[in-house]
């Protein structure tokens, strides 16, 4: 049995060397390099742990996306192992996805994570959901655009949605809209400041320390306040985004809106902010 391990190590080291070159030589995205650890059970269990520790904060324990995109659809959308390796190694410019340089992240670490992800990813893309995207755009313009940006249109109080279709699974977007998602994205935590004369300033928190808090208020004014100048600073439990229950948005309207959002892949829009 031992020779198997030896062969495996040789294969892995050789592949790792190949890929190390790959990173620096910028082999095109259609590079045929394949994950040398695909299907390897030790690598998959190691990759699961590594994924949970290093990726799940943003991409979710189920890899269906929280702050970062749903990454279970990447193979179904035609990305190659080599391209995914490079994405992890180099990060994605102008997004929160960081680079993972050696030595902290070895080539093997990346292949292990991809070996694990492959086991929870469908090979083919899911069939498109119901709904009419063109109608959905009207729903968006009526209900969402005051706070959310798509391309060069819309508000800034909520996250930019120019890439949301690539980033989030349909079901997750539905939960967010219906108000059944509990977490807030960093930089969008709802906060209420109360001035000494009792005036309330509502907004989302951009930053804070022991002595100050920086907010964007509901009129999109960005401003820093000293805690000493305020009567109180309270973190709100409920998202700044209104709940769109069936009373505000019918199931059919929701389907249309989701169809529109699924089409937002960031390809025609200006790059989203680095936040």
């Amino acid at each position, binding site marked *: 049995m031992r020779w198997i*391990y030896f062969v495996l*190590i040789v294969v892995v080291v050789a592949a790792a060397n190949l890929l190390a070159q790959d990173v620096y030589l910028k082999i095109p995205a259609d590079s045929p390099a394949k994950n040398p650890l695909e299907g390897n059970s*030790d690598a998959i*269990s*190691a990759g*699961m*742990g*590594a994924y*949970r*520790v*290093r990726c*799940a*904060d943003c991409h979710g324990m189920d890899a269906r996306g929280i702050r970062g995109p749903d990454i279970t659809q990447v193979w179904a959308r035609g990305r190659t192992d080599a391209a995914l390796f490079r994405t992890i190694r180099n990060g994605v410019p102008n997004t929160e996805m960081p680079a993972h*340089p*050696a*030595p*902290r992240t*070895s080539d*093997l*670490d990346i292949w292990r994570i991809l070996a694990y992800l492959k086991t929870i990813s469908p090979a083919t893309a899911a069939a498109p959901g119901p709904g009419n995207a063109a109608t959905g755009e009207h729903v968006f313009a009526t209900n969402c655009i005051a706070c959310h940006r798509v391309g060069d249109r819309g508000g800034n109080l909520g996250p930019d949605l120019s890439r949301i279709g690539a980033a989030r699974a349909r079901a997750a977007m539905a939960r967010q809209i219906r108000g059944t998602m*509990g977490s807030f994205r960093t930089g969008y935590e709802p906060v209420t400041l109360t001035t000494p004369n009792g005036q309330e300033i509502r907004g989302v928190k951009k930053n*804070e*320390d*022991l*002595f100050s808090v920086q907010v964007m208020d509901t009129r999109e004014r960005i401003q820093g306040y000293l805690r000493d100048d305020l009567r109180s600073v309270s973190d709100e439990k409920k998202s700044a985004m209104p709940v769109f229950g069936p009373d505000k948005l019918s199931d059919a309207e929701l389907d249309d809106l989701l169809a529109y959002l699924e089409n937002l892949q960031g390809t025609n829009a200006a790059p989203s902010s680095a936040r």
Partner: protein
Amino acid sequence: MLRRTSARLAVVIFAAAACMATLVAQSVAPPLVTTQELLNGLASDGSRWLMFGGSYTNQRHSPLTQITPENVSRLVPQWVFQTDTAGRFETTPLLRDNVLYVTGPLNVAWAIDARTGRQIWQYKRELPPTGGLTACCGLVNRGFGVLGDRLFMTTLDAHLLSLNMKTGAVVWDATLEDYSKGYAATIAPLVVKDKVIVGVAGGEYGIRGFIDAYDAKTGARAWRFYTIPGPGELGNNTWAGDSWQRGGASIWVTGAYDPELNLLYYGIGNPGPDYHSESRQGDNLYSDSLVALDADTGQLRWHYQFTPHDLHDWDATQVPILADLTVAGQPRKVVMLANRNGFFYTLDRTNGRLIVGKPYVVTTWAKEIGADGRPVILPGYVPDEKGSLTCPDVTGATNFWPASYDPSQRLFFVNAREVCATYYAWKQEYVPGERYTGGAGQRATGPDMRAWGALRAIDPATGERKWEFPYISPSTSGVLTTASGLAFTGDAEGNLLAIDSHTGKLLWHFQMGSALHGTSPITYMLDGRQQILVPSGTTLTAWALSDIARVPSTR
């Protein structure tokens, strides 16, 4: 004629003498750093800071009193020094004869005029390509050691250098180990008598850790203490099979020294692989231990293991602090350490026996420290593939950032973290030079899992907390205290903080733009004014009171 000649001669002699006097004044040799000065520690005149912890006790407590709780709000910046390199400071600068000696990230180092912040010389080590370096957690350095007119600095490629204090030129270069096998060095050397004491990092890369002593003059190795005993040595049987060969147990935080007992005290790193421990059954000595070594020979005198068979990466690489205190009516020579595993320890430093072992943060994995000195471990905190939630987290209840100790108040000051984590473990084969952790920990988040921290003042005779100053998120700053009753530290948001060390009350703060990380300010006197020197991010900033007049020194 004779008279004129003698008058002329007198003039000439006078002129020559005057000239000589001038020459003599200009050529006073820079004072050499003596072993006696190292033994004296922080002098009451504030003229020097010559080692990592200020003195061999590592108390990081200054006798200076010009800056007080009453006037600290009048601190103003004197100058700012920028590294112009990537990476951030984790260093403790040294001060000698009005010159600062500072190590930075990427093994760049400087001599800096303490009056102006202007560079006198710079040293830069040519490092192997960063892909080849294995320092797990940042390409940092924690500071110089000094003796005579020589500085000592460890390097990321696991060397120890001696530099000429006047020029920054390399005097000798000793290799600790082969960096390509996972060894690195970030520790500030400790100079004891004629030897330079260092250790190696690399606990996440399957190394076998050691503490070395080198001859300060020649760079020849005087002794080596392996932190994992080899075959035939006492303790080797605490490692299953051949796991001792790659068990980690690194050393990356400077120890303490007791000149009377002639003992060195060093905290040792975690066993590897960190989380999946099947391959290393046993206590895994001397990982996660404090070892007391004979400073002349490196012989082990005693050890105390905080976390036998560690499963959570809880290195004991915290800064050990020495003090003499009265416990239960008895005078005791102690060594104190707030451990990453959640417990605060006071040990008898003559024999390693436990005096106090009490949790100082929320600690779920052990019920208490038993009478035998071992933790009473609770079930259900073994990392596995599904993950097990345990407090404290991987970074620990505290870590390598130095604590301080004020003997006049009998108080130990530490930046503590209240964070839990889900720990995962999986089987991993060892590949030389690769990370070898067998798992990982993920910080627990959620509404009932707030991650926060506090500066805590602990009585080492009882382990009781006297006060705390809470932060909104955990700080990774060290602490400096002064005899005037001040604690200087930083929060994670970049604020430099001055806190009343008797009460925990905040007195003054300044937003530095980058957090103090892994180090604390130092303090010294310069031209009659007490200075607070703050390494944070890529800057060094010197502070002094605005209304104290300079008294330029004439020498």
